[in-house]
């Protein structure tokens, strides 16, 4: 963008005549002048803090069903959001219009909502002194990521080959799906504390969903892999290995009995088993929960909240993990945050509003689905650290229990009650897996379950996931080693 030059101080009446010409293909230094002006306007009017978030997104998904590509769906998104803070309150206004006047209209709407009156035409506007562009988008070849991603033709070819491999591995197949998406996102954050930062993200996922049927017996198993930052992720996918895994699980679950409800000791597998910590504890460590007073952990920092065998992290740094990025959606460099160490609560997951309202320092965790959402404190790559036991030791400690090999989704309610579906479960008898079970749901209280995780093995593994919450759906990683929960309620029939 370029702008007409005015003598300082800039007067409010001069703003409409500023002649900014936006670059439309990249968020670069030319956005500094108009955003500095608008941020200055917001502060001059009386806002305590103003932030702009600009986004461009180029998304495509591809679906293969059985032996045909049935959907290729590109989506082009651009927009901006402006957040205005005054006292303990804030407002967020979003728009598709990235022109200077569009951004100004959004800002003025936000200021009006906060009850801030636009001053007279001679009021002076001090532009905000933004830092030189902190451009994470130039790291690791990010500016070439989009061009390096697979073409539509390649997407289709890989998915059809993969679905063919799945057909060879599975029995009693009723329907096969292979799905891929690529989400390329460019963001720019400018705020009245001088933040001016850009990032480019590339998130991809690919996987299978297999439905098997034999008479009245049915099983459906899905498996998804995720990646950030590797344009060759799809073409490097070992779909044969994934197909074998999915086909084996679907075959075992096809004739499984329904689990008998009750209370059992449970061994939860590593990888996506980490969803238990994500739901039962992770969400309750977000400062948004402290703000709502919906977490039992709100005054427990420094206190024992979990079994002494449990240490847990949340970070955005693990190479190519699904919740990895260089800066959060408030322009803060990503961090590694120790949540729980040997059972003691060490830190919360905090964003800007969380720091302001709860006092817990920001952790680079301000995240959002896109420009239509204000950022909130959200998890990134969240996992239980490996312990000292072997997996065999965990199984050997159970006389009769449930092995939850593959977890489904779950949620936690405002009172700390959580629930998880189990997609693939087995009965454990005398330390051995004896038969497959289906229809299990794990339910419990967050504060209680954390003290029942008594053994952690040494085989940590991470898995991609999608987390929906107050600021929309974001990409996350869950993870853990195999863990033993001494007892938990299992809903079934």
């Amino acid at each position, binding site marked *: 963008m370029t702008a007409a030059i005015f003598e300082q101080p800039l007067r409010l009446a001069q703003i409409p005549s500023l002649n900014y010409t936006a670059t439309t293909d990249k968020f670069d230094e030319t956005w500094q002048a108009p955003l500095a002006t608008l941020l200055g306007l917001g502060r001059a009017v009386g806002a305590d803090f103003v932030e702009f978030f600009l986004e461009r997104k180029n998304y495509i998904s591809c*679906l293969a069903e059985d032996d*045909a*590509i*049935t*959907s*290729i*769906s*590109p989506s*082009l*998104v*651009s*927009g901006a959001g402006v957040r205005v803070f005054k006292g*303990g*309150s*804030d*407002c*967020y*206004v*979003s728009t*598709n*219009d990235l022109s200077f006047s569009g951004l100004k209209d959004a800002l003025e709407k*936000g200021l009006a*909502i906060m*009850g801030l009156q636009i001053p007279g035409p001679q009021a002076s506007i001090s532009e905000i002194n933004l830092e030189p562009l902190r451009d994470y988008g130039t790291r690791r070849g990010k500016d070439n990521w989009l061009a390096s991603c697979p073409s*539509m*033709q390649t997407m289709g070819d890989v998915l059809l080959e993969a679905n063919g491999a799945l057909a060879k591995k599975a029995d009693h197949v*009723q329907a096969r799906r292979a799905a891929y998406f690529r989400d390329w996102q460019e963001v720019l954050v400018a705020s009245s504390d001088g933040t001016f930062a850009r990032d480019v993200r590339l998130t991809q996922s690919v996987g299978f969903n297999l*439905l098997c049927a034999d008479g009245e017996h*049915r099983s*459906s198993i899905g498996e998804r892999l995720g990646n950030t930052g590797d344009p060759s992720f799809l073409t490097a996918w070992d779909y044969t290995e994934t197909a074998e895994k999915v086909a084996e699980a679907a075959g075992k679950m096809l004739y499984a009995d329904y689990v008998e*409800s*009750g*209370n059992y000791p449970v061994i939860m597998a590593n990888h996506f088993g980490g969803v238990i910590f994500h739901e039962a504890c992770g969400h309750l460590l977000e400062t948004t929960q402290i*703000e*709502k*007073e*919906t977490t039992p952990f709100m005054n427990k920092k420094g206190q024992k909240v979990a079994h002494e065998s449990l240490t847990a992290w949340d970070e955005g740094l693990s190479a190519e993990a699904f919740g990895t990025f260089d800066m959060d959606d408030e322009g803060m460099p990503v961090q590694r945050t120790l949540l729980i160490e040997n059972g003691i609560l060490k830190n919360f997951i905090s964003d800007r509003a969380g720091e302001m309202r709860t006092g817990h320092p920001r952790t680079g965790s301000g995240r959002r689905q896109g420009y*239509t959402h*204000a950022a909130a404190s959200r998890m990134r790559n969240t996992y239980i650290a490996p312990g000292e036991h072997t997996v065999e030791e965990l199984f050997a400690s159970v006389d009769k229990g449930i092995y939850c090999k593959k977890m*489904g*989704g*779950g*949620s936690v*309610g*405002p*009172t700390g*009650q959580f*629930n998880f*579906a189990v997609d693939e479960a087995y009965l454990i008898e005398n330390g051995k897996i004896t038969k497959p079970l*289906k229809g299990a*749901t794990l*339910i*419990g*209280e967050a504060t209680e379950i954390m003290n029942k995780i008594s053994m952690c093995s040494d085989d940590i593994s991470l898995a991609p996931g999608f987390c929906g919450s107050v600021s929309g759906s974001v990409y996350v990683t869950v993870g853990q080693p195999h863990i033993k929960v001494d*007892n938990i*309620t*299992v*809903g*079934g*029939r």
Partner: protein
Amino acid sequence: MTIKTAKVQTIAQQAEAIAQKLNITKYDIYGSSVDETSAQVDKGEPKQVKASNRSSVIVRVWNDQNQIGVTSTTNVDETGLALALKTAYEASAFGVKENAPDFSPQATAPAAEVKIEKAEPASVPTLVETLVKAEKGVLQAHEAITSVPYNGIAQREIERFYLNSDGAQRSEERTYASIYLYGKTDQEGRKPRAAGAMRIKSGLSQLDVEGCTQEAADKTISHLDYEKIASGKYPVVFSAEAFLSLLSAFSNMYNAQNILDNRSLSTADSLGTQVASPLLSVYDDELHPENVASETFDGEGTPTRRLPLIEKGILKNFLHSAGTAKRMNAEPTGHASIGAKVSVGLNYLVVEAGDQADEAYQIDSADGVVLIDDLQALHAGVNALQGSFSLPFDGWLVKDGKRISVESATVAGDFREVLKGIQHIEPVAEVTAGGICPRVWVSELSITGEA
């Protein structure tokens, strides 16, 4: 630029000009624009106010091989439309060759004339004041209610349109306002309890804020005295909201696209078969006068309508798009969402009330019955392809007509068995945001209480 300012006619003209330049002869466009304001409060003070004006269109382009390509964009000016049409044309090279979607034969058929009540937007201070008052009402209802952690008030103005290169062109506008309140208790030595309520109407002035406040407070208070429930089999009564949740979660039973994809509990031959108790009749009725958010046409321009799904327990119809209707020799039903793969979904469910009250099924004198008010975590606890569910719920164990809140429990079963196990449908239906339904009594389901 938003659709409101661009106007559908302008978009149609621009699309036609761009299509000619790109040698595109067949296309259609579905678009919508939302102007929205919402607020949340915290103990009498505004916490966050959000405003949004966003638009999006999705374009479909057919190439000369009759393959289809699709692109969606939030940029609805001429540049954005041109890029979307061009990208969709490129994508069409990879479109399906068999059973490719076509225009709906009903895209130009007359749509229902529905009286649409449009409300003027309220000011932000009015929204906030309304919500603050409602929050206060919940907090003052009982000393144990210490917060209303989830609350919100919103008003939306929605415009949507469909047009195609054969001259079809439809558009409509609508407004609605909504409020939700979720109270939470905090008592020494007791577990926190929570419950809520919501309302939706065409505008703020029509919204029953007082009723929502009262319901949220009453429900929260009703869960104060809770007990564990012993695991076992219980007769179950589903509230309107809970039963509608189940009907929606297993909608693949009446979804033609799911059937064609082999991802349904039904097959093409299931029509005319007994799938439920003869007591049950279910309709999808987007145009029902109680449906505040009703739409007169779907994503393919097909007029919406009242469609019998189950009548007296017999499966009567499937939900169709233009494409599924063609493949199954049926009519499109107004349930399509446009996309690279057209999807089919429910609109507004209406479960018919039972004929008459039955002394044997009175909740206020029932004994040993579980009344389920709200099913939770349907995204996780429903296996729609197997027909099974295992779900946490809010509800009460009814003993001698007295309701005792269930501390924490799940209900599990098979959807098809639930439908066949219906014993009674109450004579009075309740209007909810998602549909209309009376309370439904089911013979026995597994309840697991937390130890």
